[in-house]
């Protein structure tokens, strides 16, 4: 079991990360939260401070994670403030407009930059640090969309797919240093951002539920985790449809 006493959360203001942060605080963790939007981040930190007890430490800072020059400084500060790192959750990302990406190569590059390269940059720095200290867990929110390319969102899918493969390799490398690397693949999540969708179907999960799954996976040091679990079965089928058929499908 990995203990999660001191955790850094990147992209802390996303709904899934926010609920994960709340549950971590409820379990007694100290947190360092990084987010892009100042108002949102401050509201999040105030909220976590109210929830935390006096001996837990809650802090954070505003940063645009596409600026990779800042990454080393962010990790240093977090480590100093928390007095060490037991866990890291990387949750930042965007859901690109597929049509806009198709029309504009620069837009496509930009989305891959945010959703894959900025994460890989962070991971490279974090991996070396945790490898040295020989303990800790890194969890990254990837997506079921990274399991197979589909016409409706393959730019996002390609970025997440790159991330998932990078994480596989990293996990393989860090197992020797007793550091766990967890790939989180959420399905449909009922966040306030998706309020306009019809969520009456059984596939929609609450962010609280996903958050619980993330924490459990981090504590147990799991490898790849589908959340909720049944997406494992759905994606198993989707991955095994022959390409000759898949290319004509519209999913």
């Amino acid at each position, binding site marked *: 079991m990995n203990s999660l006493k001191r955790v850094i959360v990147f992209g802390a203001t996303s*709904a899934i990360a926010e609920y994960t942060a709340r549950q971590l605080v409820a379990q007694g963790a100290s947190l360092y939260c990084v987010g892009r939007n100042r108002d949102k981040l401050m509201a999040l930190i*105030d*909220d976590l401070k*109210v929830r935390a007890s006096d001996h837990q430490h809650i802090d954070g800072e505003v940063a645009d994670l596409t600026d990779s020059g800042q990454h080393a400084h962010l990790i240093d500060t977090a480590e100093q403030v928390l007095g060490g790192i037991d866990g890291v959750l990387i949750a930042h990302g965007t859901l690109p407009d597929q049509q806009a990406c198709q029309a504009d190569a620069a837009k496509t590059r930009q989305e891959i930059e945010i959703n894959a390269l900025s994460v890989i940059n962070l991971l490279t720095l974090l991996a070396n640090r945790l490898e040295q200290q020989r303990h800790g867990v890194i969890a990254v929110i990837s997506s079921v969309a990274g399991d197979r390319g589909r016409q409706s969102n393959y730019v996002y899918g390609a970025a997440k797919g790159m991330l998932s493969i990078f994480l596989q390799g990293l996990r393989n490398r860090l197992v020797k240093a007793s550091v766990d690397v967890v790939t989180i693949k959420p399905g449909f999540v009922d966040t306030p951002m998706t*309020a306009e969708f019809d969520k009456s179907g059984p596939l929609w999960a609450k962010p609280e539920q996903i958050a619980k799954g993330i924490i459990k996976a981090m504590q147990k040091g799991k490898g790849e985790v589908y959340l909720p679990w049944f997406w494992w079965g759905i994606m198993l089928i989707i991955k095994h449809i022959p390409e000759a058929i898949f290319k004509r499908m519209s999913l």
Partner: protein
Amino acid sequence: MTAPRSWNRLPYVAPEAIHALTQRTAVVPESLPRPLLAYGNGRSYGDVCLTEQGTLLLTRGLDRFIEFDPQRGVLRCEAGVTLGEILTLVVPRGWFLASTPGTRLVTVGGAVANDVHGKNHHAVGSFGHHVRALELWRSDGSVIECRPENDNRWLSATIGGLGLTGLIRWVELQLMPIQNPWMWVESQRFGNLDEFWALNQRAESCWPYTVAWIDCLAKGNAQGRGILLAGQHASAQTELPTFKEGSKRFPFDPPFSLVNGLSLRAFNTLYYRQPVTPQGSLTHYVPYFYPLDAIQDWNRIYGRRGFYQYQCVIPPREAEAATAALLDTISRRGEGSFLAVLKTFGHKPSLGMLSFPRPGTTLALDFPNRGDKTLGLLEELDAIVREAGGTLYPGKDARMSATLFQSGYPQWEAFNDYVDSSFSSRFWQRVTS
């Protein structure tokens, strides 16, 4: 898009658009169709939280705490936080809500907008009495911080203001100190209404919390028989029992109401015959205050057609006669609810211009929706309430007439000056037309 519904699942109306708020300072887009109306956790009844035109602003995403002072018991939080979330935070630190309704699944914004009340109304007033401050966003872009000590006109319009004065973004509450999460509760059976009045008067003078459940189907000498629960927060104890919260969910929508004459009579008789503890016992605050919260989606028991909740208040002078007349009418029709609740309000004047609580007796009942038959019964009840100078609770109403509303809320025209021109509800259109 699935349209948000109210708790009694009628009327069934959809807005033109819905917009989820996730950040209290975020701009409400100009492009959204007007009028606007906040929708919290969908626990009010009828149409105070619904609109057929314009946009519902979903406030559950505004669920952050802002500041808590554990020394003074002052909590500031966003409007979409539920009372249950507040209790989870503050009870272990020795604080409790000064006033709470019978469900903790309501948002704090909704509790203010309906100026909800609890079993301790006779001792501490309603929810609005414990609001230290709130922030109101107006559609012209202005933001008003309302405090009782400043100019409180906006506060008295917004408390009980049914969400019509603008969007409540945060609320600051004064909490009440407690020693532990337990209640000391005495329950006593009473055989009819006369016994209730005597028992209730004695209980109110020495207990902060009182409420009675009555068997609304009992007739004759047994009319109004029931059980009175009197409670107080337990004092410091050396040893406390353990409490484990269970949760069940009502799993499906029956095609018709499972609440019918047969099941009602059986349930009410069994409930009345349950063992009582006149000598008192310790009960955890959750089952004491929120017995129905243990069954998620309990409203589904009434079937697809939904149900009507009827809650009235009768002024003290007319209370005994009118309560008897209401029960007569209900038992004659053989309609009635699992839990008919009877309670007397205290004399502390409510702060809101449209607040429901006022001196007198309040009776609350649920009726399965059987169409015209049910509506006919409710109109008979209206006549008794009107005659007695009483009124109905907007937060639980789906059908009262404009005349009945306007006679019960004489300040409604003055209140109109505070209504945000870009906010409205189906309820408001119904009772002001």
